[in-house]
């Protein structure tokens, strides 16, 4: 009976959309095909379900009465302005640009939603050309199992619960936003147990998130960009002088600027000195060590000592398996 149900709901939509006045339930029952043959009880149940279905699709059904002075009967209507896609006016270049969105998503449900959105634009005569900017299409992936649930919860503003990292503790979070950075998805939200902002890397979520709260259950703060700053690299708060061999260790050289060697240092052949800003809380020691004998810290002494300690640790951690 699915076709009949679709028919009835489309007819209900057209009926509510075409009426300027609030239509009482009894009137709806009379005029909408598919209701009048039902018994009272069946009509009540069916009408409630149909309304829920429509609201679930995002159709804004209003309830109200036509006359505020008399205790008029409650009725229903759909305001056209709330229902219809507002007028949009894209330039031809913008329309071409829209087409590039079609193949970006590699995640099934988001890809489907994008296709539906483009379908609605086509319905108003905006014809995005999917082929024109084909060369430009980046792939956005979402392999994290938690992604779908957290995306939905972020949209509907519903509190979720999940296990994070090594702990068995259930974390309760009000999702504020989802962020894609360096190919990984993150969730920013309020940890309701700790009453603090938290950033969660979705790949570290160990249980499928479950929805715990009602949709629209909280407000999302305005300054989201500020609160996402914890994903940004820590800004440099110190400077080092590093000797780098020729074209080697590019990540260190690009971060810095050429500098003169200190007087007391006799540079080895082929090395040049770079003044490199770094964050003390970051992994600059690891970066220097990774360059092996291609980078030598000249200053500050404290940094040089940490590098030497780590190099000694590498030698100590891997004793030669073969006697020399």
């Amino acid at each position, binding site marked *: 009976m699915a076709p009949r149900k*679709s028919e009835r*709901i489309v*007819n209900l*939509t*057209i*009926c509510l*959309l*075409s009426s300027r006045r609030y239509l009482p339930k009894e009137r709806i029952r009379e*005029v909408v095909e598919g209701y009048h043959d039902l018994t009272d009880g069946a009509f009540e149940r069916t009408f409630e379900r149909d309304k829920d*279905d*429509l609201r*679930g*699709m*995002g159709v804004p059904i209003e309830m109200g009465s036509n006359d505020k002075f008399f205790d008029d009967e409650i009725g229903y209507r759909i305001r056209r302005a709330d229902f*219809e*896609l*507002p007028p*949009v006016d894209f*330039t031809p*270049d913008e329309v*071409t640009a829209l087409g590039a*969105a079609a193949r970006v*998503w590699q995640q099934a449900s*988001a890809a489907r*939603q*994008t296709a539906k*959105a483009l379908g*609605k634009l*086509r319905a*108003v005569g905006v014809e995005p050309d999917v082929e024109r900017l084909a*060369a*430009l299409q*980046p*792939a956005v992936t979402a392999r994290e199992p938690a992604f779908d649930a957290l995306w939905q919860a*972020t*949209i509907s503003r519903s509190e979720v619960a999940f296990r994070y990292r*090594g702990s068995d503790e259930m974390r309760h979070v009000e999702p504020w936003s989802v*962020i*894609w950075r*360096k190919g990984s998805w993150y969730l920013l939200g309020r940890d309701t147990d700790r009453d603090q902002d938290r950033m969660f890397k979705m790949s*570290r979520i160990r249980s499928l998130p479950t929805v715990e709260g009602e949709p629209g259950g909280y407000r999302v703060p305005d300054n989201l960009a500020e609160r*996402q700053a914890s994903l940004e690299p820590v800004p440099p708060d110190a400077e080092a002088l590093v000797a780098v061999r020729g074209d080697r*260790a590019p*990540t260190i050289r*690009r971060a810095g600027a050429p500098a003169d060697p200190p007087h007391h240092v006799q540079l080895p052949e082929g090395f040049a000195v770079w003044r490199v800003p770094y964050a003390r809380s970051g992994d600059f*020691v690891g970066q220097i060590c*990774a*360059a092996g*004998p291609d980078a*030598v810290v000249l200053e500050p002494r404290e940094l*040089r000592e940490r590098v*030497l*300690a780590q*190099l000694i640790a*590498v*030698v100590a*951690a*891997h004793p030669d*398996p*073969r006697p020399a």
Partner: protein
Amino acid sequence: MSTSAEQVARLLSLVPYLQTHPGITVAEAARNFDITPAQVIRDLKVLWMCGLPGGLPGDLIEVDMDAAEGEGRILLSNADYLSRPMRFSPDEAMSLVVALRAVAEVATGPEASALTSALAKLEELTGDESRRVAIAVDAGAAEMRQAVRDAIAAGERIQLTYDGVARGETTRPVVDPVRIEVRDGAGYLQAWSVEPQAWRTFKLERVVAVESTGVSASHHGEPPVTGGAWFTDRDNPQVRLTLAPSAVWITEYYPVLDVETHSGDQSVPGHSTATGAVSATLPVASVDWLASLLLRLGAGVRAIDPAEAARPAVQQARDALSLNAALFGDHG
């Protein structure tokens, strides 16, 4: 969403679509709505029974079913009251906006400005949702991307200045650029490298300069398909690392073949393994890559199997220590 809810949502878009596209083929409509042609016909049969309340013949949507089932052309009329589709649902709006923002991150020139203005108009149409998602792609400097794309379009051979990370060296390869790709949040250039006469992939972020050579690119067929898993090649040699908690992050950063978390008692002989230590098997992209990984992690790698795999890293650490000793006359 139930099947009928899905169908109703689609019908509410289909009716305005068919009115703005009179005479469109069943096949084309099916493609646009990502359904089968048979489903288009079923949808039309539902619409045929829909219309204004009253049920009089003039109130119903008119669909030429003969034309649809016969010639495969759709003519739908008498549905002025459904001339525009519904607003974007929050999910549709967010999905579309993210896709466009991703394109905007890699676009250049006039395309970039068209994308920015299209996004601004869309964000006005959508609600508060579109600010609840942020997206960033490491695609390097816009001038580099533009220069590479221009060279691809013109079929030109170019010389890159490239900060290679695997070998930790800046090189100046001469390449025939073929295509720009974005995966895992970063942009890559696929190109034929003239020097080793082989396909190479360059991370756009590390392209520091692009110079023209005045020579046309030659044809080398299609570059190999990189697919989803880039460096997880199981044919590569593998190592098993025992990682301290401070180094466990690498299992999320690099492709790993398997990861095992140890409880306190499964300690590696000769090492005290605190809870949280992890063993991971990694494919080794190159000897240099593994050496720099071990050097970078330092004491974070407690053991490696096979033990010989640590030799290049240990050698480099010794060389670095000697160099320091030569410069400063000490070990610290």
